[in-house]
């Protein structure tokens, strides 16, 4: 299954639409994309997870790394469209209160 990451520029924001399973095998690809956006100090990074069927601790670590990266230059990362099982993993780790999570991409761009 692997992962597919599609990058889209929306104004000053960059949106990454992720499809597949974000695990120890695939998270390096997402990490590379997010690191690049953080290095570019993009003010808003949106990760659209509508197509994510599974996420593990490696996937969460990738997102936490990006969250910490954006906080260093006052940027923001917003996650959107999480399915119930993926949201459940965030809740297990108490990360649903750490990340800004919205239901839709439009809300993420406005959050």
């Amino acid at each position, binding site marked *: 299954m*692997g992962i597919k990451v599609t990058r889209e520029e929306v104004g000053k924001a960059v949106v990454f639409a992720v499809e597949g399973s974000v695990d120890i095998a695939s998270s390096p690809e997402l990490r590379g994309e997010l690191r690049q956006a953080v290095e570019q100090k993009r003010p808003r990074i949106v990760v659209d997870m509508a197509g994510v069927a599974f996420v593990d601790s490696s996937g969460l670590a990738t997102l936490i790394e990006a969250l910490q990266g954006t906080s260093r230059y006052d940027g923001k990362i917003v996650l959107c469209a999480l399915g119930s099982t993926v949201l459940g993993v965030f809740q*297990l780790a108490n990360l649903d209160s750490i990340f800004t999570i919205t239901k839709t991409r439009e809300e993420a761009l406005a959050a």
Partner: protein
Amino acid sequence: MAKRWDGIRISIDADPKYLDALRAVLAESTSILGLDEDETAKIALAVTEACANIFRHCYGGQPGERIDVEIRFETGLFEIRIADYGEFVDPAQMKGRALDDVKPGGLGLHFIHTVMDGVEYRKNKWGGTTLILQKRIEESAAAQDEFGFDDLDAD
């Protein structure tokens, strides 16, 4: 004649690229028992984290070593045994991170212990670790046969 055992045994190379296939087998297995999507996802998470720990800490991230997975259908219990061929690690030495110490990493053990009803580490006869993960299931959904799994056998 009573069945000696009921379940699935598979071996994978210790390479993360096989985790999707392993999760697919798990999903088929839980569907046999009638477990819902949420329970299936939790079990898949625990098994993924367990295998990831083997990849990283037992085999040093190098593919080419073997992981054996045995999925057992017991009455009222769904059990997954994951065996490696590395060195046995004392569970007391395994440490995750506190949830409020937000940083990358350290969540795998927390997930395993949170989503499973039983977690046990045993030293196996090859000197490695067999991790036994258990999930209680409702009697109505459990297989009703008698079982007698032996420990995972070496080829």
